[in-house]
């Protein structure tokens, strides 16, 4: 019976990971990825590994989306200036 919470978090992780792969737009992928980071942290906690959960939370919820969004913005800007130069 105590496996219910593990099952729920595993299902959520599987759903989030699949959804992150299926999205086409990188900005939307970053949004799903940030949800995936939070859900993965819960999965680690439920599996009694809160230390891994802490680092996953720090990296997954803020840092990875920030890096991806900064890259997306830089690429979009470069595309815009190239279009303007033409």
């Amino acid at each position: 019976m105590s496996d219910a919470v593990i099952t729920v978090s595993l299902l959520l992780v599987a759903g989030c990971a699949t959804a992150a792969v299926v999205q086409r737009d990188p900005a939307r992928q970053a949004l799903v990825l940030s949800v995936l980071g939070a859900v993965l942290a819960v999965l680690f906690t439920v599996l009694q590994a809160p230390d891994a959960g802490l680092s996953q939370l720090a990296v997954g919820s803020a840092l990875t989306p920030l890096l991806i969004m900064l890259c997306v913005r830089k690429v979009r800007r470069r595309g815009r200036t190239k279009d303007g130069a033409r």
Partner: protein
Amino acid sequence: MNGWILAATVGLGGGGAAALWGVTTGSPGRRVIAQNLTTSAVCPALLLLSQGYGRPAYVDLALLMALLGPVGTLVFARLLADDLADERPSAWGLTWAAAGLAAAVVIALCVAGGPGRAMVKLLVIGALLIGGNVIASRALAGGFREVRGG
């Protein structure tokens, strides 16, 4: 399995599924709101899990989540500002419902734990969670226009 873990399972399943559904479908505005909802759904679940497992150290996870979750939403509010400018996404009913859930969980844990240092920590987490949630929602709704651009 005790009542705390059961409550955490229900909250995690409901909130997580709703956030996953919202973040994968619909307009960009809806997606960022769902991303913000993740913090409000997962953080109370982490608090309940810590009480259910009887390990006060697990509360640190909820503390970090309450701190970093709104920061992640603010990242999106800042860097997706151009996409969100015409939409001004806001769901104040959902925001206050999430704040109410956080307050209910914190109060229940305070009553269960009794007064002491742990209770102060719980209250700090609750204040951070509700305050961060409201600030992030206001930023998404375009409440801080003056810091936009760049």
